[in-house]
């Protein structure tokens, strides 16, 4: 969790990734969402320093960037846990009981969707359809799909992940 110790004002040290990103795109407003997608992919969230850099590069106000970041559910402002568990609450999964999986997950980790456990190990996310409806209900851990899920299967996965390190 080095991130937290650093100054959050955003105008400090250089960041290689962001510098490189700014050479790959033209400085026009239309590229904001594309660049944010890359930032989210790289850091796992959209840190303030990235917002600041994009604001200067694309000549968009910070407020506008904040507006866009909070509009789209893929972008997050807080770092996700080492293991990000997403439960699909799309209709096909819902009909097959994915709410029970979500309830159990919240009960086990004692956090709500969008939050990260204090040790930074787990975070929970609600997702709408990963497209694996044939395997409903599904949850994913860092993008890896676990299909035909049950509460028992979830418990097993959580136990395994908790035991690591």
């Amino acid at each position, binding site marked *: 969790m080095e991130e937290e110790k650093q100054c959050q004002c955003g105008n400090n040290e250089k960041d290689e990734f962001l510098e490189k990103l700014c050479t790959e795109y033209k400085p026009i*407003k*239309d*590229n*904001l*969402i*594309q660049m*944010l*997608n890359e930032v*989210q992919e790289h850091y796992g969230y959209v840190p303030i320093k990235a917002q600041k850099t994009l604001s200067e590069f694309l000549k968009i106000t910070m407020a506008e960037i904040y*507006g*866009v970041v909070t*509009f*789209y*559910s*893929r*972008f997050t402002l807080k770092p996700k846990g080492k293991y990000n568990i997403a439960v*699909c*609450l*799309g*209709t*096909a*999964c*819902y*009909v*097959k009981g994915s709410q029970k999986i979500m309830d159990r997950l919240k009960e086990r980790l004692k956090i709500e969707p969008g939050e990260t456990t204090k040790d930074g190990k787990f975070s929970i996310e609600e*997702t*709408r*359809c*990963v*497209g*694996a*409806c*044939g*395997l*409903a209900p*599904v949850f994913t851990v860092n993008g890896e*799909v676990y*299909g035909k899920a049950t509460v028992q299967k979830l418990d097993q996965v959580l136990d395994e992940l908790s035991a690591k390190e």
Partner: protein
Amino acid sequence: MKTIEEIKEIRKNKREELDLRVNTKADTREKHILVCHGTGCTSSKSPRILENFKKIIKEKNIENVRVIMTGCFGLCAKGPIVIIRPEDTFYSNVTPADCEEIIQTHIIEGNRVERLLCKDIDGSLVNRLDELNFYKKQKRIALKNCGVINPEDIDEYIAFDGYKAIEKVLKEMTPDQVVDELKKSGLRGRGGAGFPTGKKWEITKGYEADQKYVVCNADEGDPGAFMDRSILEGDPHSVLESMMIAGYTIGANKGYIYVRAEYPIAVKRLQKAIEQARDYGILGKNIFGTDFEFDIEIRLGAGAFVCGEETALLESIEGKRGQPRIKPPFPAESGLWGKPTLINNVETYANITRIILNGSEWYSSIGTENSKGTKVFALGGNVNNIGLVEVPMGTTLREIVFDIGGGIPNGREFKAAQTGGPSGGCIPAEHLDTPIDYESLKEIGSMMGSGGLIVMDNTKCMVSLAKFYLEFTVSESCGKCTPCRIGTKRMLEILEKLCSGQGTENDIYRLEKLAVNIQKASVCGLGQSAPNPVLSTLKYFRDEFKEHAIDKRCRTNECKSLAKIQIDPEKCKGCGLCQKHCPVNAIEGEAREKRVINPDKCIKCGTCLTNCPFHAIN
């Protein structure tokens, strides 16, 4: 760069080479092992199956066998799926460990691996793909190439008449003729609203401008729908080709595909397809030696359902919050960066190359009077054969759910099916025989939608279902207009009241009135259609709403707060553990006697349930 002659050469040679893919009687010693690489099968390790096959074939030095990745075969419930052609043997639920046996028994010894053969719903073993009931009533037009070709190989697409339609259009047809052909075909928008495609192209063509755009809406937001994803994953070139035809027709030289970032496989294959098409000179300048130029770029969505609405999608491509614009002006007049823009959905595009090649007469001979062609549905929920199906318009819901879908699992009863996702409505058992087309679905209070079709059995509470959809709409409402932003929230609150036993009969009336107002007053399709799930469940399952409001009862026990906890006197042994653990002293009865729950005191916490050693409480 390839010339037309070179592409024709590829088509001819490759087609002969791939004949065994579509012809079970092909005269060849070759065998092709097709491994499904749709999202469903990929999630259950189909890439490892592919690797294993390749490894074993190399180790054993087997000749005349090729292993190929393909798009979705449709029957996702039985994945991962492996098909061996030309004999068309269909292996289901294959694991990486099964590869050895398939190679040994099937390829080397020439026998079928019985244990991996797919079983139909009636338990019979299926030898060939086309013997499966799931495929019998289907007609594949948009999905024609899915599961047949390798989507990452442009030559395989070319082999099956790929890029022949654009060639025909450029060489033989004027833009007006293309419009005319589409109008005669009767094709309507497959994104849900069903606007006649030919008409849309004609209108966009009619506006004069220095720059026009073609956009493909691949922001498939309906949770539980994966038709567009499967087309993009299984046959990406067909979308590119149709967009080129659109560009030629309306006079645009630039196309954008707006696709969900949640579909990484689709994005990757699209990217590859675009690169290959550019390499061949099919995208770029002077296409096929004419002065037509066209290029396509991908734009990623970032998880907002409302971006499936065409004007919100345009805002998003421009890098802004995806909030819908006021219409008119429609995108045909003022779209991307204020320029005339043609927007069609993935499935609509997938139909166009086939119409150009086979003619409008052929296409319009399929379907019903006002809805021509086929429709792809993502069949999901409580149904045996979960997967992707394409049926002619006019097929009844009963045929889809029972003949193709194989009916409801666990011997339960069909209760309702939801089409159109959060914008659509539910269809009860009494309308199972309605032929599905745009008009008939609207008449019974649902809509075609983009193609999500979720089946529900009799354990599902319809009030909870309405609540589920409203939760979705509330979280996805963009916030621009008041009726949708605040109205849907109020509707959700009423539904929450009903589900927790706090509702009254008056709430049902208020819910209905609010729903109608939101329908009329919202700015975009999301708000206008958000009340549909509530109105249609109210229409067909009003009794259930009344039970929740008046009798405080949920017949399916899905609403926890309404569930009544009872002790079964037959099973109760009088141990008293429940009494000991009850936090509110709601359980009455003397030592060693059967206990009873006092419903006035009970808070339905469920503590007694977990503590009863005899499972006597339910």
